[in-house]
């Protein structure tokens, strides 16, 4: 009797010790996870979220109430025009890049081996080069005495040099060049994932090539097109360097307007409000885009 109870007590003690050991083991695991994830979260909290929070509270400090700056931007015809122009530009650039990307992605999707490596290199290499260098290259090429005008005049297509720079043409060329890979990669991926048997089945059932394309291939690759289009659209909305260098005064984008507010006019509440209007547009697009594609993988597609 005595012996049993003492064994029981010892067992109980050991079990209690077991629970404590498991609990301390869990605590240890939790601490390791926290130690691994903590630094990055603290860093982003201090260097990203807190500054944006500061900017948000700054946007409410305009003269005439907390929402005065937001109202001023929405009410002013000049500022509204900059927003409309930027949306227009971003939308058109997204359309052009998608149209150029589709046949190119189709070409890539049929390449194998070395040819594919070279073609992919052509798409990924520009993403490694600074936007500033890519934009600067167009100044060299599109100038009045640049090679593009030499070719055009020399071939007799035009009588006098075309002015490509410091107007919308230059901005469009530069932005399409910089953003094209972002539209191309998602389309390419969607084409790679098309089941070839579906295309063959459609052909086998007597569909014309055009019918196969319209009813089978295009619907299957449309999510990729949508993802690329939205990604380019949202990246183009915040563009600053390319329109600032290749565009003229009439090609003011929201990003350039924000810069003007900060560096020339020193009106911080207006700059902050314009930035949050811009963010609002971007987030709306992200929300739509997240229904089509894994944005994470696409944004870091280098």
């Amino acid at each position, binding site marked *: 009797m005595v012996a049993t109870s003492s064994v029981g007590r010892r067992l109980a003690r050991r079990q209690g010790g077991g629970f404590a050991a498991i609990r301390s083991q869990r605590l240890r695991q939790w601490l390791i996870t926290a130690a691994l994830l903590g630094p990055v979260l603290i860093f982003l909290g201090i260097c990203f979220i807190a500054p944006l929070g500061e900017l948000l509270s700054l946007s409410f400090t305009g003269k005439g109430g907390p929402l005065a700056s937001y109202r001023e931007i929405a009410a002013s015809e000049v500022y509204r025009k900059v927003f409309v122009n930027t949306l227009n530009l971003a939308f058109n650039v997204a359309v052009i890049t998608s149209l150029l990307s589709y046949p190119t992605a189709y070409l890539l999707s049929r390449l194998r081996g070395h040819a594919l490596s070279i073609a992919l290199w052509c798409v990924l290499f520009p993403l490694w080069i*600074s936007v500033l260098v890519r934009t600067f290259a167009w100044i060299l090429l599109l100038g009045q005495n640049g090679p593009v005008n030499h070719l055009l005049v020399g071939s007799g297509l035009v009588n006098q040099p075309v002015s490509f720079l410091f107007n919308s043409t230059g901005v469009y060329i530069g932005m399409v060049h910089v953003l094209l890979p972002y539209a191309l990669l998602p389309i390419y991926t969607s084409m790679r994932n098309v089941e070839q048997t579906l295309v063959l089945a459609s052909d086998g059932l007597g569909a014309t090539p055009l019918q196969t394309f319209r009813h089978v291939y295009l619907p299957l690759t449309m999510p990729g097109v949508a993802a690329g289009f939205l990604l380019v659209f949202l990246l183009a909305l915040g563009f600053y360097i390319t329109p600032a260098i290749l565009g003229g005064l009439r090609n003011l984008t929201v990003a350039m307007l924000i810069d003007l507010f900060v560096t020339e006019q020193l009106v911080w509440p207006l700059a902050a409000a314009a930035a949050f209007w811009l963010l609002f547009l971007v987030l709306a697009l992200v929300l739509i885009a997240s229904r089509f594609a894994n944005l994470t993988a696409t944004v870091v597609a280098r």
Partner: protein
Amino acid sequence: MTNKTRIASNIAGSIVLAFLVLPILAVIPASFDDASYIKLPPDMMSLRWYRVFLADPEWWQALITSFKVALLAATISLLLGTAASLGMQRVSPVTRALITGIVISPLVVPVIMTSIALYYVMRPLGLHGTLLGLALGHTLLALPFVVVNVGISLRGIDPNFLRAAEGLGATPWRAFRTVTLPLILPGLAGGGAFAFVSSFDEVVLSIFLAGVQAKPLPVKMWETIRVEFTPVTAVASSILIAITVLLFAVVKLTTGTRTSRRAEHVS
């Protein structure tokens, strides 16, 4: 699809691929121009503007500043990003998606917005115009590349390797050092290179965070392009391209055909 559309897509696709690469390469012959203005193609080739670049302390100081900032940013991103990738393996998928979202968000928020916010916060702290301030800003944009690259390597590790290490009596730290670390080394190299280049190339953040004491090469270029049209900017561009290509080659050599696999991973 018919042969005709195939040929049409081949031609259109080839033109687009050439349109992507050739304009960038045009910068290189322009940098060897001998004339005092940029002419493409140049009449005479020389190293005249490379000598000007090296003789002007403002230019090569900018290059050195770029190196220092990129090295600092890549180091911070690698430390924070690798720890984060390891930590993200230990949490639930929902938490993981949430943290990924937070890490990626600096790439989605317009850079101009992050730039003015950091400028506003860093000025009173004395971080504005310093190497550290620039590196911290660049780290925001470089981190996602490290987290994604290291994450891909980590997911590629067979969990049995770690179980075997544990079964043989290795402590978690030792298992990490002798099993995990060697296996994710390609991911670290790739992520580090991406981080370095993304800092080296960054313009908008740098324009707002740079000062007289710390002015990276792209900022010096930006200021010059807006004032005058000189072949020195072509030299600076060529140097930026050369360094990028060099790193690209190093990553290719250390990680095999990862780049093409990455592209396939994008979806």
